[in-house]
């Protein structure tokens, strides 16, 4: 919860700062800007509300901790949602801030900017929803039959893989949505290609979080044989850390790449095809490091 609140606070702070700047530039549309700021902040808040729900469950449920694995699963649920909320909180703040700035420049576009902001920040929430799903699975599955020795590491690894993995995609999706709100405010006629490319870019920026989700599910459901030695446990924990941390950079990087693409399209929409192609090639290269991290994680789970 504590960690999860960081993201929402940064995101909402950013939105409010942009809204203030926007109102000072164009006081006549203060009402619209204020409304949009509140909606944007409410969405940025949702990630931390997920974290709050998990924290409440952790506090007020009477867990009959039957084994050490269950204890680790509950701890991992907290880690997953706490870290998982950071990215979405920060990410959802960006489009809201950009929409406020945009409204001060082009008050006539308020409606369309708000729609675009809502789509963009809704997509930003998906990584934190992945984290929420994994948290619920970790909280409410019965792990009592699991062998303790690699089991504890598998649970912690699963929590870290999706929790940390969600940070990058959340921020990345937000950066894209910010550029698209900027672009629409500057050139309202480009709204269709800009929104389309924004959605494409956001979808690809989500892939590192999806790889993290995949590794989490494998760690939770594969079922590892009991062992006396330390090495297999550390391999599973290492796989979780590797995928989780490894997904941060590509998530943010793909977001930046795609925000550059969206910016360029908003300025020159005749060359949408060429720009989209280069953007996709660039994003694919940025994805490669996430794929290395996934390969190492899979090697540690299945080979080591």
């Amino acid at each position: 919860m504590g960690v999860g609140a960081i993201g929402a606070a940064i995101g909402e702070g950013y939105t409010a700062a942009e809204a203030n700047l926007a109102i000072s530039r164009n006081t006549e549309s203060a009402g619209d800007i204020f409304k949009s700021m509140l909606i944007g902040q409410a969405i940025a808040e949702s990630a931390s509300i997920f974290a709050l729900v998990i924290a409440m469950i952790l506090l007020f449920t009477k867990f009959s901790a039957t084994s050490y694995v269950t204890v680790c699963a509950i701890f991992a649920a907290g880690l997953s949602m706490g870290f998982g909320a950071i990215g979405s909180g920060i990410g959802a703040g960006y489009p809201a801030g950009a929409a406020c700035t945009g409204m001060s420049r082009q008050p006539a576009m308020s409606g369309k900017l708000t729609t675009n902001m809502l789509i963009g920040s809704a997509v930003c929430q998906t990584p934190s929803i992945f984290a929420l799903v994994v948290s619920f699975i970790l909280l409410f599955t019965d792990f009592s039959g699991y062998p303790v020795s690699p089991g504890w590491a598998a649970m912690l690894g699963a929590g870290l893989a999706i929790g940390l993995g969600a940070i990058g995609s959340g921020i990345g999706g937000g950066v894209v949505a910010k550029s698209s709100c900027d672009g629409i405010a500057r050139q309202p006629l480009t709204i269709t290609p800009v929104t389309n490319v924004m959605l494409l870019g956001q979808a690809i920026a989500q892939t590192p979080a999806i790889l993290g989700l995949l590794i989490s599910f494998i760690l939770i459901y594969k079922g590892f044989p009991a062992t006396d030695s330390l090495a297999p446990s550390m391999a599973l924990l290492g796989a979780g850390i590797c995928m989780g941390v490894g997904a941060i950079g590509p998530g943010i990087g793909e977001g930046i790449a795609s925000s550059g693409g969206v910016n360029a399209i908003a300025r020159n929409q005749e060359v949408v095809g060429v720009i989209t192609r280069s953007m996709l090639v660039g994003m694919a290269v940025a994805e490669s490091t996430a794929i290395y991290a996934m390969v190492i994680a899979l090697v540690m789970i299945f080979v080591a």
Partner: protein
Amino acid sequence: MAIEGADVIRAAAFIGAGIAMGFGAIGPGVGEGLVAARACEAIGKNPKEAGLLTRTMLVGQAVAESTGIYSLVIALLLLFVV
């Protein structure tokens, strides 16, 4: 749980491989994104040079990728050699 010296070394190698590859992927991921963003903006300004710009972008990304590949090599060494 009987923990011996060789087991501790293998355990440390596994966790080290995870940390090496995980953190090693952050920088190249962000850096390659920055390269691609600038390339897209440049193509938007000057679409005629799209081929040249894409080529330059790929070379720049390949160099940025190298540190990610170093991490991958180190992680593989820790997994299979140590």
